[in-house]
């Protein structure tokens, strides 16, 4: 039962499960830091898919793509956390429902 290599489907299923957990985190949590971490879970889930297909097709494009995803994630985290600090300075809370400055 536990012989042979892992089929591609298993990696894709793991990727889908992690992506949906990330979506659920973004939808149900209101703590802005935890919502941000859920976004990171989604980015990581995509990386699994990219590298699994890379391994399956014997390419290196997917690894470059996941490299770029990591670059974008690093940029996104630094800017996003700076925004959170700036918001926290104006309004000392981390509850997303209380940030309604841009609501009309």
């Amino acid at each position, binding site marked *: 039962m536990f012989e042979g290599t892992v089929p591609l*489907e298993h990696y894709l299923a793991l990727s889908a499960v992690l992506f949906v957990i990330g979506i659920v985190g973004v939808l149900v949590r209101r703590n802005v830091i935890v919502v941000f971490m859920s976004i990171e879970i989604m980015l990581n889930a995509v990386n699994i898919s990219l590298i699994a297909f890379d391994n399956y097709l014997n390419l290196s494009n997917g690894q470059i793509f996941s490299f770029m995803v990591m670059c974008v994630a690093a940029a996104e985290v630094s800017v996003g956390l700076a925004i959170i600090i700036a918001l926290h300075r104006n309004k000392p809370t981390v509850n997303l429902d209380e940030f309604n400055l841009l609501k009309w």
Partner: protein
Amino acid sequence: MELLIFYPIAGLCVALAFGVIFNTSPVGSAMCLIGMMLGLAGIFVLLQAHFIAILQIIIYAGAIMVLFMFVIMLLNLKESASADWVSRDKNLLISILTGALAVGILYKIIDITFSADLNSPATLPDTFGTVAVVGESLFTDFVLPFEVASLLLLAAMIGAVVLAKPKLD
């Protein structure tokens, strides 16, 4: 044998991902996320993408999570005691609908994946996923995206400094 390694790591990753979204304290969430990223590095090693696995540990589990921990410490967040779940009760119908949507998406993805004909794996050369092969691809076919990424990181660095500054003179 590979399956015997894959299933515990995959189970651990999913459990830790649940730990991230169900933890009441942000520090606990961050710890779970670090564990999940280390587990994913193990998955990448299993896929023979060694370079990406090391990058995953250095960039995600190292740099990005340290930044998260810094901000959590800086904001001095109290334990929310699941208060941020209670405040969503007013949107119960929307919550149920989006939950059903997420489950439907997951079901459809897994259904399509397992019914597809994907059973002819390529034989991998020994050099797959090494720094040499990935680097060669990065500096020949993808040299323009590589340069644009450096520009993106510069813009993000300046943007973060400007945003986090107390007051612009």
